[in-house]
């Protein structure tokens, strides 16, 4: 009973965690599901099969939509990451007028409801006469727009955490400003830029509301799922969902493992032994004294 009380919060926390995983477990499970018939509209477990995994593109329009999403994702990520990184540098390292307004302008897309952003873009395209040309281009424009803010925030926080003492040290060591940037600043900001790019891609890939309003006849993966949600749902969408999950978990866990491995090197047993032996020998002559450090 006492054990329960003292661990209550942890148990509750784990329960919440389980809650977040149940739908995912179902996605994975359903990727192995066999629908009773081609036309079945009921979304329910039927029987086990590897079929969905073996024939992921059974519905060619799904794979087409998937391809579209990846294309747009990559392009939007590239553009948003470049533009956003430049802006982050400006925010952290440079002086300019109108800082407050800029902060608000960058913040708003993160807080504005997607329906408003999507519909306003649609209104713009209609008003400027592009109503008949909705498609790949307009989707791309929209995606870059809403990814920008997230890139700026991510890179900015990484950059702000970088002490400029390191850059001063580089200049003290004969590096010109150009060399300082490429050899010290950029490598240290890069993890932030990478994270921003990954975030950007997943936002773009998964977007529905804004995309749907501005897509015209082009179809992305989320639009495809929406389309089939009222009809027969091919289980292959769960295959895609599972694959996405696996890829992202691998990336994130991989990064985690790498940093843990580096932490472990700090506690290298060989190091520890050497240090303690030498510390004991600390009181000797100055030549020997250096070994104690």
């Amino acid at each position, binding site marked *: 009973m006492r054990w329960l009380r003292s661990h209550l*919060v*942890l148990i509750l*926390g784990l329960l*919440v965690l389980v*809650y977040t*995983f*149940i*739908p995912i477990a*179902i*996605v994975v499970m359903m990727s192995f599901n066999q629908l009773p018939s081609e036309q079945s509209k009921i*979304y329910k477990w039927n029987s086990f099969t590897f079929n969905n995994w073996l024939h992921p593109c059974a519905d060619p329009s799904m794979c087409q939509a998937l391809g579209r999403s990846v294309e747009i994702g990559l392009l939007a990520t590239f553009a948003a990451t470049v*533009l956003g990184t*430049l*802006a982050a*540098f*400006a925010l952290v*390292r*440079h*002086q300019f007028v109108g800082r*407050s307004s*800029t902060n*608000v*302008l*960058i*913040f708003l897309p*993160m*807080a*504005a*409801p*997607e*329906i*408003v952003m999507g*519909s*306003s873009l649609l*209104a*713009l395209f*209609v*008003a*400027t006469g592009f109503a008949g040309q909705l498609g790949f281009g307009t989707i791309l*424009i929209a995606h870059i*727009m809403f990814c*920008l803010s997230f890139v*700026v925030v991510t890179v*900015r926080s990484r950059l702000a955490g970088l002490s400029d003492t390191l850059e001063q040290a580089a200049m003290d060591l004969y590096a010109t400003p150009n060399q300082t940037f490429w050899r010290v600043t950029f490598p240290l900001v890069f993890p932030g830029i990478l994270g921003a790019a990954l975030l950007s891609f*997943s936002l773009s890939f998964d977007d529905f*509301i804004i995309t*749907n*309003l501005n897509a015209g006849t082009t179809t992305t*993966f*989320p639009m495809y*799922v*929406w389309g089939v*949600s009222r009809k027969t*749902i091919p289980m292959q969408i769960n295959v895609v*969902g599972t694959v*996405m*999950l696996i*890829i992202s*978990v691998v990336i994130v866990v991989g990064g*985690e493992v790498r940093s843990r491995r580096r932490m472990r090197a700090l506690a290298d047993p060989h190091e520890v032994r050497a240090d303690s032996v030498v510390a004991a020998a600390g009181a000797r002559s100055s030549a020997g004294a250096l070994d104690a450090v």
Partner: protein
Amino acid sequence: MSETVRKKGAIGYILLAPALLWLVLFFLIPFYSLVATSLFNADGSDFRGYTVVYEWSNYTNAIKEYYPQILRSLKYGAIATFLCLILGYILAYAIAFKSGRWKNLMLVLVIAPFFTSFLVRTLSWKLILADDGVVVNTLQFLHILGANGHLLYTPFAVVMGLTYNFLPFMVLPLFASIDKIDYRLIEASNDLYANPVVGFFKVTWPLSLPGVVSGTLLTFIPAVGDYINDQLLGNTQTRMIGNTIQSLFTEANDYPAASALSVILMLMIVALVVGYVKRAGTEDLL
């Protein structure tokens, strides 16, 4: 010794320009178009100019006709946000203080599910809450739900979907805030005779408020404007403002009304954000 001294000169503007330009062109100006479409003659355009006719009737009509949806969206959004706050706080607290060396792993586990497609995982809820599913059966067994009770296609399902999908938006800011709290403060409060409950309300909760506020904002705002959860998990009685705007745009092609509703929604949000900014300043936004 030195804090970052920002460099002066034109280069700051040059770096900032592309991103800002993009946002102005594709965020601010569209919003103007939205307002214009809702207020002015909808036959106009940015090229030919709008006939400046203040069609306030678009707004009054929209509110008159759709206020149930507006209120409903606010209600569902509020309930979902509240549930997210409870669940999210427990989770954030557990990860921050009770997870020891598993902290980073647990954080990953919190975020991981949300890398699956939003739509695909919302579909899973269809299965979970299905009439012949485990959940409904159990609840019927416990007589919490009547023999003919449904969970799917009810407001309950919509709110459940909203809560589930926006949970990370609450957990992450909350975690960031709670993690910063020095646990020794809580220990100090215990040393000064506060039991855990009192300690929570007097120490932990006040210190975590910034995270609570930003988590609440980041959850409530998208929740109110969402329509996917409602479309997939609700019924015709649960239509939210998002659905309405969506269908007005794509089905009824009633751009003025749709725009008016969008503007109303945006104004409500801006009011919230302004209220927040007045208290906390703009640097904390990002």
